[in-house]
């Protein structure tokens, strides 16, 4: 139960920082999501993001920072068996579900629905 509260706080804080950057600089949402992905993979260099996921739970997996975390984590997990080559082979191991789901759903919904604006 406490994890739900932590999730609320963590995800809200990430969005708050993003909103502050968006309002106070000229960066677009595209810049900000890119910065956050890079930041997420940076935090995993010393296992910091792993600790956050353990404490916070689902709230840490929802923001885009977890995308970078999962990219580097899949790569590092593969290096155990493949050596440095595994960094390239295992890059999409964990994120594949999210990217595939986004592609599949957006493709079929585009076929079904009409654009409206």
């Amino acid at each position, binding site marked *: 139960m406490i994890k*739900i509260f*932590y*999730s*609320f*706080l*963590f*995800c*809200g*804080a990430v*969005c*708050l920082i*993003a*909103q*502050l950057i*968006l*309002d*106070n600089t000229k960066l677009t*949402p*595209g810049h*900000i*999501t890119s910065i956050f*992905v*890079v930041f997420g*993979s*940076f935090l*995993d*260099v010393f296992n910091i993001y792993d600790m956050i996921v353990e404490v*916070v*739970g*689902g*709230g*840490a*997996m*929802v*923001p*885009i920072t977890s*995308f970078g975390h999962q*990219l*580097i984590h899949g*790569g*590092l*997990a593969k*290096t155990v068996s493949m050596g*440095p080559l595994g*960094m*390239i082979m295992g*890059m999409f191991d964990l994120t594949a579900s*999210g990217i595939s*789901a*986004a*592609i599949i*759903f*957006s*493709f079929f*919904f*585009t076929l*079904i*629905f009409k*654009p409206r*604006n």
Partner: protein
Amino acid sequence: MKNEKYEKIVQKHRPTEHRVNNSLIAFLVGGSVGALGEVLIQVFCMCFHVSRTEASVFMIITLIFFAALFTALGFFDKWVTFGKCGLLIPITGFAHSMMSASLEYKREGLVTGIGTNAFKLAGTVIVYGVVSAWIFGIIRLLIGGGLV
């Protein structure tokens, strides 16, 4: 002259209030999305008796599904103009950007429209994610010697 000065002062003070409002809304909306993610994980764990890892995959797919569906139905855009970063930074923003790009270019055909432009907005996340993950992964291998 006085009016101009007054206008300047008003201009100075107006945006800050908006900013406070915006960031408060972003915090609340983003926090709710995060809490919803955790709730979904626990619900999936209880209902389908799967491990937490599988439940988190289901949770991400569910969020992407609904973000894409609501974008296709047309009212996710209004939510984004209200919630701003609260909806753009979570994984819903990724699905939303892909969905709106492919919807926008639908009339240009299946391959040259949807296929070419699907990653128009979301591609930056993947490019910089992969590049940074590769660089940081190599650094990690050199310093820490891989996953502990």
